[in-house]
Every structure is written in structure tokens, then in C-alpha cells.
């Protein structure tokens, strides 16, 4: 009897060990089939864009494509800047100071993608003089912060830097 029990235990160990190795093997085999869908090297390689901003008049904005997404580069007017800076942070669904969202107060560089479901908001529309998303009705202010509607957070600020006074490098 004692012998028999010992035998069963050894077999149990072998079963568990085999199942474990099998599961790891299956997992390792499946992973390439899943990971192949992630962004590939050629997509990642297109990660930076340089933009000439010398032609943009105050109050105007341009839209450039970066990683397949639109980036708004807006040269804000004094009125728009003061409006963005004077907002009481307690009123914001996603409180962020305007100063933290820009590198130079005149220039607002942000992803032109509504944080709700990814539509491109329309400029100079909505109840807060900023952007308005036509898809599901989100209102953004002159700093691109969400003020009203279903979007959960402010429009994203991409990584960018001023190469010189006339050029911005995004990414």
C-alpha cells in the first residue's frame, strides 16, 4: 500500500510537470500569432515629423499628420491665451493648467483626436471657443481641455520641441 501511494505521487508530479511544460509551450507558440498584430518596425520608424510654422498667422492653425493622426498646431491670440489661463481649475473635468500644456504660450501643439472615440474635432466651434467634436458632442476650450460632453480627458499633448523659432519637431 505504501509503495502504491508513492507511485501515484510520482505520477501526479509527472502529470503536473507535463501540463505545465505543455501550457508554456502552447503559450510561446501562440504569442507570435498575437504579437504580429502589434505596431511593426516600419510603423514605429515613422515616429517623428518636422513642421515649418513660420507661415501661421495669429488665430490660425494648421493640421499635420503624425503617426497617421492629425496634430493641431495653433498660434493663439492674446484673447485666447488669457481665456485659457483664467479658467478656474475646479471647473475642469480633467484639471490641467494651460501653462503645463504649452511650451510657448502662443503655440498650442496637440493631437487633434477627440479622447472619446477618436474623431477629429472642428476648430473654433463649441461653447468654449475651442474645438467641438461632431461625433458625440464634446466641447474643448482654447487650451484643448475637455469642458463638456462624453470625452473623459483633455486632448493629448504629443512629445515635441522647438528646433528653432520656425520649426517644430513632433515625436
Amino acid at each position, binding site marked *: 500500500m505504501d509503495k502504491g501511494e508513492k507511485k501515484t505521487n510520482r505520477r501526479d508530479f509527472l502529470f503536473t510537470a507535463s501540463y505545465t511544460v505543455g501550457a508554456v509551450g502552447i503559450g510561446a507558440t501562440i504569442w507570435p500569432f498575437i504579437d504580429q498584430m502589434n505596431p511593426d518596425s516600419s510603423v514605429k520608424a515613422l515616429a517623428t515629423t518636422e513642421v515649418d510654422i513660420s507661415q501661421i498667422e495669429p488665430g490660425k492653425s494648421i493640421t499635420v499628420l503624425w503617426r497617421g493622426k492629425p496634430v493641431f498646431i495653433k498660434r493663439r491670440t492674446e484673447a485666447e491665451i488669457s481665456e485659457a489661463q483664467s479658467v478656474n481649475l475646479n471647473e475642469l473635468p480633467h484639471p490641467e493648467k494651460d501653462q503645463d500644456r504649452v511650451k510657448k504660450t502662443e503655440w498650442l501643439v496637440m493631437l487633434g483626436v477627440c479622447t472619446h472615440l*477618436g474623431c477629429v474635432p472642428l476648430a473654433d466651434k463649441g461653447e468654449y471657443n475651442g474645438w467641438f467634436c461632431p461625433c458625440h458632442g464634446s466641447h474643448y476650450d482654447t487650451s484643448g481641455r475637455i469642458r463638456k460632453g462624453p470625452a473623459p480627458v483633455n486632448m493629448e499633448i504629443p512629445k515635441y520641441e522647438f528646433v528653432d523659432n520656425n520649426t517644430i519637431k513632433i515625436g
Partner: protein
Amino acid sequence: MSEHTYTPSSKFGKWFNDRLPLLTLGAHLSEYPTPKNLNYWWTFGGILTFCLVTQIVTGLVLAMHYVAHVDMAFDSIEHIMRDVNYGWLLRYIHSNGASMFFLAVYIHIFRALFYGSYKSPREVIWIIGMLIYILMMATAFMGYVLPWGQMSFWGATVITNLFSAIPFVGESITNWLWGGYSVDNPTLTRFFSLHYLFPFIILGLVILHIWALHVPGNNNPIGIDIKKPSKDTVPFHPYITIKDLFALLIFLIIFSGFIFFSPNILGHPDNYIEANPLVTPTHIVPEWYLLPFYAILRSVPDKLGGVILLFASIFILLALPWLDRSKVRSAVFRPIYKQFFWILIIDVLVLGYMGAMPAEGIYLLIARVGTIYYFLHFLVILPLLSSVEKTDPIPASISDPVLIR
């Protein structure tokens, strides 16, 4: 299926059937005892099978001419429409075929709701059916992306962004779905691959759906259990085959009406503009068959909440056999349920209309009321009715009420 005593008449038939009992299966399908009181609402199973085959055949030939690449997809659709012999016809059959497929599946589902076809012992048939329906929506959505028009692109953007609402891993999941940082060429090619695959998974599920159906047999308009075979049944062939064929004929007339007289009426003109990632159309709407769910999504003023409610509104149907516990299947004998059934139909139609309207003002308000009622119906009204409702007496057999009169 097991207690078949069929023996093929020819010697070769017998030899073959002993090795692979295909002829036994054929005999089973032909003799299959069917309730003799099935009405025309029961013909949609056959119609749906026809729709699936039509989509597969037309899709197969369209794939011979379509190019899944962001620079060529839109042009290859125009090439199909203008240059390919009968390309316009094949594409219009395929695009309108999707709508007809959904029309038929909605009738089929509401028939099951009215006559209680999802109840014991048919829960597995119902669940497989719902899985088919969910796969149909996924397939149709991916198919709509392939022409790479404005609605294709922005519809894909909005729907894939639903997953970004998931806390913590949302962004990684959307990037994984896209194969990049936005809807782009990798997204298009994988959608094409999956759009080609899914119909065959649906076909497999349809076979299981019918298999599961053939275990208890069909439900019927008065929703009672019947002896099979008996005076209450007729063999499937020729009685049901001919009835199904007649219904299919009527269905095909309507189908052809769309194809030949207004092939674009169910589509959206914006999809004849090539996809542009910089400009969102002012008013994005999904295809008509997804509108009620879209209305539910938009009626919630919170991103994650809206997404949860959208998926809940679909997956709640899977639990239906356990939400409605009333022993009586057919609404014919459920005077109160019958009224709530029609209110639900109106509710879903109203939600659909609201889904097509802009999400503001009175439309939004009505969509919210409609959304609340939708969940109320399944989560409160049905469980409550199961115990409260006083049902009418059920006849002992299909022939009974007729013979008494």
C-alpha cells in the same frame, strides 16, 4: 438522430452509408418531423441560410477583384463597379445582402422572443444563435471598412476606440487592433483577412444551431411540447421545404427591389468619398442595423459607461432564458407579456431612429429613456412577469383547439 432505421435501396448506397452515414443524415433531414402549425415567421431560418450562402459566394468573387491596401482599396471598389463584368451587380448583391441578412435575422430573433423559442429545452440553440448574431455584427462592421471611404475609416476609428475605454490596457489593445497608432493599412489588411474568415465560422455555428435544433425539434406558435412524429407533425420535406421556398421567393423580390431600384438607399453617400484621416464627417452614423446599439452608446455621458452599456445591451440577450422564467413559451397565452413584447419592438425602433439623429436635445433625452426601458424590460419586467403574470390555459395538442370548435 440516433434511432434511424434508414437503409439505402442501392447496393453501392448501402456500402457507402455503412462507411459514412451521409444518406442517413439526408433521410433524417427530409423526414424530420415538424409541427404542422408553423407560420410564415418560421421561414426565416431557411431565408437566413440562403443569405449566408449568398454573402459567401458574392464575397468570394469580389475578393478576386478587391485590393486590400489603403492606396488602392477605394479605387479597386470603383474598378469593380465600372470595369469588372457584372461587378456592379455582385457588389450591390453583397452590400444590400448584408442589410437583408440583418433584416431577416431581426425578424428571426423577434419571432423567438414572441413565441418563447429560447426557453427550455432550447437554451443552447438560442445561445449559439446569439453568438452567430454577434459574429454577424463583427463581420458586417469589418466589411463596411473595406471600401475605405470616409464612413469606413471613421466608423472603424470610432468602433475600435471603444476598446480604449478599458482602464489601464485600453491603449495597448487599440494599438494592437490597429497595428499602429491609428486606423491605417495594417488595420485594413487584417480586417480583410478576418472578414473573409468569419463567415465560415458563422457557417460552422449555423450547423451547430441546426443540430441543436434537431434534438428537441422546432418550437411552434402555441409553444407546447408535441409528440414526434404524431398527428401534430408533418415531415420537413416536402411540406416545409415548399413553404420555405415560397417565402424565400417573396424575400428575393424585396431583395431584388433594393439591388435594382435603390442599391444605395441603405448606404451612406459619405462612403463614396475616399478616407481622409484629417477630416471627420460632420455626422457619423453606422449602418442601420447597428443604430439601436449606437443610440445606447451615445446616451451615456461617460465614455467607459457608454461602452459597458453598449456591450451589456448585446450580452444581456445571452442570459434571456434565465431572465424569463415563465413556464409558458408562446406569447399567445401570455396576455401581459404580449403587450411588453410590442413595447420592446417600439423601443428598439425608436432607439434605432435616435441612433441616426444627432446626439443632442430632445433626441438625446428620448435615447436615454429608450435605453433605460431596454434594460428595464430584460432585468425587471421579464423576471417580474415570470411570477406575477396569470397565463391563459394551454391546449394539450396542436389539433385540440381546432377539433373542439
